[in-house]
């Protein structure tokens, strides 16, 4: 039972992990991008449609990444180049992303013969749990660690790679400096604008893959409108919970994944709590986490100082 619960929590946390990692990259570049929900929605649609048409998992992933990066590009043009307010631009991206995603989904559903869209057999098979010889057959540990679909492993690899990139490489030092104090980075000869575009778009792409998870896996390969369903917002909060560190995001996603599926594991006969309460739980905990973390004192675990402020070189 506990193993089943944990496995379910990992699965429920995976789209959160991608969203959180993408947003970490955005905020490290100094941009509070509230468009995570929108970028995930774009990724969900693109991933699903390309998977539906080509029946190829890798192409679907690439399409999801590209769609998320495209959403991020809109945001980057607005905030990096045109200096638009970051909060408003991010919210706009969310509304736009959800709207476009549902519109395209609706169009395809209308064209289909059965009135529903379901991913074909081959791609569904590719997305099934990866069976690793020996390891997957271990008792308990096999199920707990080696029984997942490719998204899960991809997410954890992404987290580790991002952590290495940010904290162990020159490129990572540069982008952290850009997020903290773009003027200092600029004076050190770093191409601030270029780095911002690159990191914001890469972050958007990662969010897009998280969206593809919700579109292609969560509902068993059947297209459903609003499939992201607010996960993008939890991801924005998880960034704070993870104190802007990719590896910590893995644990944060696991915890919030657990909250998402708690309702299926509480015995209703003993504790009569309505399902609606459990649906609300992740958001309630998000609010509590935000309050708790805002009291944190350490400066290393704080939001990058330049986050939310657009950089203009000649400003006094």
């Amino acid at each position, binding site marked *: 039972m506990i193993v089943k619960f944990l496995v379910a929590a990992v699965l429920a946390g995976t789209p959160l992990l991608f969203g959180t990692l993408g947003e970490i990259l955005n905020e490290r570049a100094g941009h509070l991008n509230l468009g995570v929900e929108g970028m995930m929605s774009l990724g969900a649609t693109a991933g699903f449609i390309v998977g539906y048409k080509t029946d190829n998992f890798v192409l679907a992933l690439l399409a999801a990444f590209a769609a998320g990066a495209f959403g991020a590009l809109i945001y980057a043009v607005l905030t990096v180049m045109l200096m638009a307010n970051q909060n408003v631009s991010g919210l706009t991206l969310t509304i736009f992303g959800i709207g476009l995603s549902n519109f395209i989904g609706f169009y395809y559903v209308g064209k289909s013969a059965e009135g529903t869209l379901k991913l074909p057999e081959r791609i569904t098979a590719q997305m099934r749990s990866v069976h690793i010889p020996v390891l997957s057959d271990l008792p308990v540990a096999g199920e707990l660690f080696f029984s997942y679909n490719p998204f899960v492993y991809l997410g954890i690899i992404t987290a580790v790679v991002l952590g290495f990139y940010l904290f162990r490489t*020159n490129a990572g030092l540069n982008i952290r*400096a850009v997020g903290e104090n773009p*003027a*200092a980075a600029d*004076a*050190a*000869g770093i191409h601030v604008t270029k780095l911002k575009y690159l990191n914001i778009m890469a972050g958007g792409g990662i969010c897009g893959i998280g969206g593809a998870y919700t579109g292609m896996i969560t509902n068993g390969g059947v297209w459903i409108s609003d499939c992201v369903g607010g996960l993008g917002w939890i991801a924005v909060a998880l960034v704070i919970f993870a104190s802007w560190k990719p590896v910590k995001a893995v644990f944060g996603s696991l915890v919030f994944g657990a909250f998402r599926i708690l309702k299926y594991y509480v015995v209703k006969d003993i504790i009569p709590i309505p399902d609606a309460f459990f649906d609300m739980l992740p958001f309630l905990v998000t609010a509590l986490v935000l309050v708790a973390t805002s009291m944190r004192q350490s400066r290393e675990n704080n939001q990058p100082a330049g986050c939310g402020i657009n950089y203009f070189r000649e400003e006094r």
Partner: protein
Amino acid sequence: MSEERYAIECKGITKSFGSVVANDHVDLKVKRGEILALLGENGSGKTTLMNMLSGIYHPDEGTIFINGKETVINSPTDADALGIGMIHQHFKLVEVHNAMDNIILGGKEKYFNRKELRNKILSISEKFGLEVEPEKKVYDMSVSEKQTLEIMKVLYRGADILILDEPTAVLTPQETQRLFAILRKMRAEGSAIIIITHKLNEVMEISDRVTILRKGKSVNTVVTRESTESRLTELMVGRPVSLSIERAVVKEKKKLLEVYHLSVKRQDGSIALNDVSFDICSGEILGIAGVAGSGQKELCEVLAGLQPVEKGAVLYDKENIIGKTPAEIISLGISMSFVPEDRLGMGLVASMGMTDNMLLKCYRDSKGPFIDRKPAKKLAEELIKKLDIQTPGTETPVRLLSGGNVQKVLLGREIQSVPNVLITAYPVRGLDIHSSYTIYDLLNEQKKKNTAVIFIGEDLDVLLQLADRIMVLCHGEVTGIVNAESTSKETIGWMMSGKKEVESVAGTIH
């Protein structure tokens, strides 16, 4: 070919921003092994010129020669490659990173070669006598440490042409001496150094030659040894200026404000003020000296009713004002004016015009629910005339005005309410000589009107000339209150570093 000896040679540099000509055919030359001081009032184009050397702006006309070769500097990276290092007035450091990460930022060295990087930094520190701890976080550093780090950054990149934009504005006299020692060492190593400063005594002390800019033109270049402070001022302002500050004499004094055993804690729990007691009379200027962060800010805010206290009392005309809100303090008939150190943050609203900034202080006087802008506008116009404020109009956002004019707007507004107590924190910070003297005159004028003036300053020469008494703070404690006429700069310097008055005062009484 004597020209090749110059590290930098600018010929006929012109740069305009719209209709404003910031630099008008400016010439400037610096040799290796030489310190050149660049002198000029606010808005005379010093920073613009330096920004062209560091690749931030491009000249409209004129040529720049580096090491005798004609050069076009397109970006900070180009300047870097030419060995030009700029130390900005506002530090360009990443606060949450340590010294080492700041130094290697943007460089090509491998990030994970920590040991090698560390050794390279330490060897440079040794060579030039810079004290840098590679692992120390910038937010734990004092202002002077941050500046040393900035110098380290450019040296690490191999710069041998150094430009420092008002480096001493935020340093104590002792820290300034330490900086000068570093600069002399670099000069001896063959670096070319340009230093921008307003402080004439420093120009005399550190520089070999002085280039003077006035209204965007280079008016003259003189050898420091052959010149004097008053000659330099004359060149800078364009007419002879008296450099002494008069000390107004006021006969009738009565105690206006008494502070007893005041203790204040900061938000993080550290002690800001510890058992501070003093008093101030009407018609007196009380100077407050101390290294930045010794509790000056908290003291000001307590007096203005903005900061809660741990214990102690502040009596204004026998009434305790502790625990009262700013509005209550005003309604008691106490008119206390507060000119905070952060002019555009706390003093004025940067994006509003003069009229609206005047309204902030007097909107309560108008009757009914609507605001009457007329008196405020009239007041703004009066101030512009009386204080000679340079602004396109009363509705121009104050952030577009130069530092001196912003300070005049703020001080003018506060003085207009005819305060009994006037609190000013670093009122001349960043102002040129001319504007500074206008401010000193304004404060003296208030003193003559029987206002009690609290003047928090950093230039000890000014404190000694302007104030009647000087209180010295060190780590939130009063290390002495001395008569300004019978004390010396050294004595105050000692008290700023924590030596109590008793130990040193004996030597100064004659």
